[in-house]
């Protein structure tokens, strides 16, 4: 009998059973559940169900991030309904407009820990694999059911192992690794699977870089993603956590449906062309394509190191197109202000906006006009994603976005890094 994958172990633990195998359907009791601006809609579903009180309000997080500060009266009304609900139900973890993006804030607050299960009403909930947690997205109705009952059925997924070896070169990042994986395997390459990372590259990635891999695996069709937590993660959590935890690791003889391996030491910067995240080419094949807007931010690449990367490229230069920078959280914005990164960005001609999702899904704060191309550090470039189907979106690392902002066209950041 073969050993167990991370997903098999984590879901068995959260369901309170001794063991589970891929294909089993379990009633899982997650350690944390969360939603965002969709919480008012979830509240209405919850009320329709006939439940009175949230089952475990201390394990519920709500972050206002998708359209903040409210761009219209309708959005403001939506936020007002959520604030009222938070008070009424005594929801344990509420984060106001400007605190940041749900995935980033929950990570900063250490609301989820290694070996735990977190379900979010957001597709990028795979993000929490960076902490060695099982994170998966659910729909609004399922979040209402989770509020009401504290439980949800989950099918234990088959797993896929992604082994990364070697050390990245200067100007190449975890974003480039994730784009290469999508390019090689397609947006359906990880469908229904637990994507479990392995290999010696992982320990070389910084805290800020790690979440990129599991975050982007949402575009891979993955149910969840996982990185084995190490001392870097444990030390980070020690200062923030409020409960004990026991990390989980896959058995060496666990069964993986697919094995994918990538030596990252020779990897060049990558870029996803419109209109799908797996439409990936080497950056060198896209150099010179004109862009009218550059955007650095989102749950994928809006952390301090991402802003630092942009500043490293932009220092002493002026942008030739609009550059919108939106830190992923207030903590990122504060640290970037203290360290002078914000000043460097402003001097180069960037504009800085309130921490949150920004224009990523076409709500506000940087919607392109039809036929204007945007290069973005986000994870999604589907047609119409940023508000209009006529506006093409390119996806790349913050380095590449910053270099492209200087040139007004897709450019190689390594020319600007010493």
């Amino acid at each position, binding site marked *: 009998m073969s050993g167990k994958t991370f997903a098999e172990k984590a879901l068995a633990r959260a369901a309170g059973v001794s063991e589970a195998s891929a294909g089993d*359907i379990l009633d899982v009791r997650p350690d944390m559940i969360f939603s965002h601006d969709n919480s008012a809609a979830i509240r209405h579903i919850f009320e329709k*169900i006939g439940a009175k009180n949230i089952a475990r309000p201390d394990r519920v997080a709500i972050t206002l991030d998708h359209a903040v500060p409210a761009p219209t009266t309708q*959005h403001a009304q939506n936020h007002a309904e959520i604030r009222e609900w938070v008070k009424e139900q005594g929801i344990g973890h509420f984060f106001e407009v400007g605190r940041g993006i749900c995935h980033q804030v929950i990570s900063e607050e250490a609301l989820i820990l290694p070996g735990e299960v977190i379900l979010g009403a957001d597709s990028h909930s795979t993000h929490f694999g960076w902490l060695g947690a099982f994170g998966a997205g659910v729909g609004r109705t399922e979040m209402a059911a989770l509020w009401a009952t504290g439980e949800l059925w989950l099918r234990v997924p088959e797993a896929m192992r992604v082994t990364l070896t070697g050390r990245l070169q200067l100007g190449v990042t975890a974003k480039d690794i994730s784009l290469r994986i999508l390019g090689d395997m397609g947006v359906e390459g990880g469908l229904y699977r637990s994507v479990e990372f392995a290999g010696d590259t992982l320990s070389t990635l910084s805290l800020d870089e790690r979440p990129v891999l599991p975050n982007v695996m949402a575009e891979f069709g993955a149910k969840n993603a996982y990185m084995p937590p190490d001392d870097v993660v444990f030390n980070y959590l020690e200062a923030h956590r409020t409960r004990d935890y026991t990390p989980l690791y896959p058995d060496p003889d666990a069964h993986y449906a697919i094995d994918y391996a990538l030596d990252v030491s020779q990897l060049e910067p990558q870029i996803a062309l419109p209109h799908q995240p797996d439409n990936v080419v080497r950056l060198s094949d896209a150099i010179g394509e004109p862009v009218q807007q550059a955007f650095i931010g989102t749950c994928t690449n809006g952390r301090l190191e991402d802003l630092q990367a942009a500043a490293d490229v932009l220092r002493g230069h002026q942008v030739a197109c609009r550059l919108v920078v939106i830190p992923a959280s207030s903590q990122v914005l504060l640290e970037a202000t203290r360290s002078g990164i914000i000043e460097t960005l402003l001097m180069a001609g960037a504009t800085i906006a309130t921490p949150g999702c920004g224009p990523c899904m076409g709500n506000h704060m940087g919607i392109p006009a039809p036929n204007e191309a945007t290069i973005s550090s986000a994870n999604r470039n589907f047609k119409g994603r940023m508000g209009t*189907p006529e506006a093409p979106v390119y996806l790349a690392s913050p380095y590449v976005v910053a270099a492209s902002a200087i040139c007004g066209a897709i450019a190689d950041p390594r020319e600007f890094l010493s």
Partner: protein
Amino acid sequence: MSSHRCWVYGDNVNTDVIFPGKYTYTLKTPEEIAAHALEDLDISFAANVRRGDVIVAGQNWGCGSSREQGVTAPKYAGVDIIIAASFSRIYFRNCINQGVLPIVCPGLNALVQTGDSIEIDIPNGQIRAAGRTFTFPRLSPSVQAILDAGGLVPMLQHRFAGESHP
């Protein structure tokens, strides 16, 4: 056995083109949501879809955002059955929870065209189309129970009504 008119699409259709993100916090009524169904995929869909029509798609239908309107927009427009070679996982769950039957049937979208009629036999798990018969797998009993209840909300309504009136 029932007869259905098809709307046929390809692989990896994402929820941004099924229901654009810019509407997710502002459009609320079924009529408003239905009016924008498949807006950035097929502009003729919302204007011409009829109750009982089905969507027939390729692999990974509904990838991308978890937004539930990806399912409710076609549902409110009249679609109760979606057939695809495969579904993105959140989309599949959203279908069950909204009482929309997701049928996994690889290959069908290559053999039919928009406007064609197909026959679906749900109890026996069969589809007749283009002169051929396809079989599709049953849902697991616990998942089928949610669908049989009409979705997750009606199922939980029953449970919570039982708790308040034992």
